């Protein structure tokens, strides 16, 4: 989710939310197909129907929870961009941790801390992988990271969130 030119800030929330829903729905579809196939009673017909049922019930749920995560994550991310005035990996890590904490808020403070640690570690790993990948790519190709070179999005006429350069 991280290593291409991202959308400018307010629209990033919508983008991440939708992307996360699609990702969760497709991925959940794949995994639930396998799971439903294995859990169904024997017989090809039953197995097909079992995997279909599992996809239909579980994949939208998984997509929904992915979408909640993604939407809240990028909302906090944009908030941090606005508050701190810069955009660096710490934003992602903090917002991952805060997302984990907020989504576990109804389970009590212990669960909140655990979930926040999980989110923070996960996002730190992803950010670290992205940084390492772009460093590796820029050392391999003399022109810099090829992956990040999407055509730059058209500059917004009036950027309400200030400057979005990457300050890494």
């Amino acid at each position, binding site marked *: 989710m991280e290593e*291409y030119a991202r959308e400018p800030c307010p629209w990033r929330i919508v983008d991440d939310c939708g992307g996360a829903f699609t990702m969760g729905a497709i*991925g959940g579809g794949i995994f639930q197909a396998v799971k439903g196939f294995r859990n169904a009673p024997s017989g090809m017909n039953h197995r097909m129907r079992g995997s279909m049922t599992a996809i239909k019930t579980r994949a939208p749920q998984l997509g929904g929870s992915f979408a909640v995560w993604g939407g809240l994550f990028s909302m906090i991310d944009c908030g941090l961009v606005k508050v701190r005035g810069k955009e660096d990996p710490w934003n992602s890590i903090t917002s991952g941790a805060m997302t984990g904490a907020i989504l576990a808020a109804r389970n009590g403070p212990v669960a909140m801390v655990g979930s926040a640690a999980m989110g923070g570690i996960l996002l730190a*790993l992803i950010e670290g992988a992205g940084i390492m990948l772009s460093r590796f790519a820029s050392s391999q190709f003399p022109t810099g990271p090829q992956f990040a070179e999407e055509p730059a999005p058209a500059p917004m006429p009036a950027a309400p969130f200030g400057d979005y350069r990457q300050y890494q």
Partner: protein
Amino acid sequence: MPVAVAPYGQGQAQPSCFDRVKMGFMMGFAVGMAAGAMFGTFSCLRIGMRGRELMGGVGKTMMQSGGTFGTFMAIGMGIRC
């Protein structure tokens, strides 16, 4: 894309869709392995695995979470190209 802007051979070309998906999978797999190593160690220690059994349990968790993460990252790359 015109050929004139490609002085570095194929390096200048945009990576193809499959390349991006592959890269996403590799990255997700690496991230998932690392995350699985951490969380797997905790959870296996918690349920009382020690020694050789612990190694097996952690390895299994690492492979599982690597596969899951890799698949999701690959999909995430695939839906955007």
